[in-house]
Each structure stands twice: as structure tokens, then as C-alpha cells.
């Protein structure tokens, strides 16, 4: 019995099964609720897995190592975002210049307002640096936080939360802001909620999803390029 328990603790199989099972539960809930915005598989999975990991008293570092097999595919999936773009390429016509200007502005606004709002609400400099890269996709947020001497794992969590916020509330807020062109909706959401917002949009509508993926990539580029300059102004 104890040997079996020890094996379960050491093998990555249990946590992989729990993670994929929790995600499947989220997909099922999304189907059952007719696509309710809160029933995002990523949100359901994080809540269920976090509760399980805490209940079983598993170290997060161990959980993370066990599920490396899942996280690894984020890289190839990012490459795969070229596919919806390839199918939507004709719709890029006339959009390139407005897109580059808009996404550059967006990257500046994301970093600046995140840092300023943390300070305004009484957070310290370290927290402001940690919040600054939150609009970029997780691996990029981690890299940028390291270059800012911030708390990189917390920056990753904030990026995930910004993504989940976009998956849950993004389409509704875009409609409130009267942004209707599906290409522009995708660009805007991808620029603030990276791959997680893109995941929601790809499920709802391919055009929005394709442009969201493009915005995610370009925002990662723009934020990485501008961060050294912005940090001179924001974190002297």
C-alpha cells in the first residue's frame, strides 16, 4: 500500500491525469452551459488543480515538474498560430500600418499603466516592476520580469490572470467599447490577454482568433523591444 502511494507521488502520471481531467471538466462545463463566459476551461482547470494540489499537500515545484510534458507544447502551439493567420492572410490588407501603430501604443499603455496603478494603490517598486510585463504571454513575461529584477514567477501568474480576465470578460468588454470589426477585436484582445484570450477567440470565431494570435506575437516583440526604454522612465 505505502509502496503504491510512494509510486503515485513520484510518477508524473497522477498530476498529468488530474490536469487533463480538470481541463476536460472545464470543456464539458463550457458545453453544458452553452458557452457561458465564466466556464473557460483554463479557469476551471486552474481552480480544480490548485485545490487538488493543496489538498494533497504537493509542492508546486513538484507539480510543475510533473506537468512539464503539457507546458512544453506551448512553444509548438505558438508556432502553430501561423496557421489561422495563413488562412486569414487576405484580411490583412490595409491593416498592417494601423495594426503596428495600435499594438505599439498598446504595449506602452500596458506597461506604463500597470506600473503606475500599482504605485498609486500603495504597492512598492518591486511589485510595480513585477506587474509591468503582464500583457505578454507567460514565457515572455518571465523573461522580462527577470530583466527588470522583479519576481518572475509572480509575473507569470499575473500574466495568466490577465489572460483569464480576457478569456472571461474580453468579448463583452469589446462590445461595450463598440469595437465591432472582428480583426480589430482579435488584435485588441490578443494584445492584452495573449494566448489565453486567443484560445477563447479561436473557439468562438477563427478571424478574431487569428488576429489575436498575431497581436500576441507582435505585443511580445514590441514589449521586449520597448521595455529597456520604458524602464528607464518608470523605474529610474
Amino acid at each position, binding site marked *: 500500500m505505502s509502496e503504491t502511494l510512494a509510486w503515485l507521488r513520484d510518477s508524473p502520471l497522477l498530476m498529468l491525469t488530474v490536469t487533463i481531467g480538470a481541463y476536460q471538466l472545464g470543456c464539458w462545463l463550457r458545453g453544458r452551459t452553452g458557452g457561458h463566459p465564466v466556464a473557460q476551461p483554463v479557469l476551471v482547470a486552474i481552480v480544480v488543480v490548485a485545490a487538488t494540489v493543496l489538498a494533497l499537500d504537493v509542492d508546486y515545484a513538484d507539480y510543475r515538474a510533473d506537468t512539464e510534458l503539457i507546458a512544453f507544447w506551448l512553444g509548438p502551439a505558438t508556432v502553430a498560430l501561423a*496557421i489561422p493567420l*495563413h488562412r486569414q492572410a487576405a484580411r490583412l490588407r490595409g491593416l498592417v500600418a494601423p495594426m503596428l501603430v495600435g499594438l505599439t*501604443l498598446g504595449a506602452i499603455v500596458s506597461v506604463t499603466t500597470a506600473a503606475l496603478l500599482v504605485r498609486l494603490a500603495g504597492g512598492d517598486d518591486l511589485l510595480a516592476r513585477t506587474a509591468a510585463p503582464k*500583457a505578454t504571454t507567460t514565457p515572455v513575461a518571465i523573461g522580462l520580469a527577470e530583466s527588470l529584477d522583479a519576481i518572475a514567477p509572480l509575473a507569470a501568474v499575473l500574466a495568466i490572470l490577465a489572460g483569464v*480576465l480576457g478569456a472571461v470578460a474580453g468579448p463583452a468588454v469589446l462590445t461595450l467599447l463598440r469595437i465591432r470589426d472582428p480583426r480589430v477585436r482579435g*488584435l*485588441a484582445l490578443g*494584445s*492584452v490577454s495573449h494566448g489565453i484570450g486567443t484560445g477563447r477567440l479561436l473557439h468562438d470565431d477563427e478571424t478574431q482568433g487569428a488576429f489575436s494570435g498575431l497581436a500576441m506575437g507582435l505585443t511580445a516583440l514590441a514589449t*521586449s523591444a520597448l521595455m529597456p526604454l520604458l524602464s528607464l522612465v518608470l523605474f529610474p
Partner: protein
Amino acid sequence: MIVGLLWLLGCQLVGEVVVRLLDVPVPGPVVGLVLLWAVLTWRRTPDDAPVVRTGDALLTHLQLLFVPAGVGVIVFGATLREEAVPLSLALVGSWVAALAVVGWSVGLLLRRARSGGEG
């Protein structure tokens, strides 16, 4: 499926090597994305190509791939509670601000370009 996986992994591999050799602050997979996009455009890849089917299957479950990092919230439970006000204000405020700026600026520039083209 294997051919599709090879394309995705190969493009990422080239991307990762290129950013390290050139020492540019760009994520390797994003360079891989641009590379695959160029290949798909160049070869006029049709919808039933292996790379398209494999890539679409992977993208269907894009949200799953963020779960391991997302569970990291449990490590920062105390920080998130103590700093709840600045963090939630920054997260939501900055998110709405940038969403509006990108949406409105791209929309405005698109309308300008369109009316400029007609006039």
C-alpha cells in the same frame, strides 16, 4: 501527424537557435511563428496538409497549455491577498486601458485610411 509535428518543432527549433545566436530579446517560438507563416505562404499550403491538421488540433486546446503555470497562484496566495488592492487595480485598469487604446486606435486609423483612399 508526425510530419505536422516535425514542421512545428523544426520551426520552433530554428527560432530558438536564431534568437540565441543573434542575442535578440524576442521569444524563439514567435520567430518560429513568422518562419512557419512564410513557409505556408510560399508553398500555398492547403487546408488538408499535415501541418495544418496537427497545428489546428494543438490550437483547439491552447488553454490547456497554460494550466501548469496558472496553478502557480497557490505559491503566491499570501502576496495576492496582502497586495490585493494594487494588484487587482493594476491588472483590471491596465487591461481595460490597453484594450481600449488598441481597439480604438486601430479602428480610427482603418477608417482614416479608408476615407483617404476614397477622397
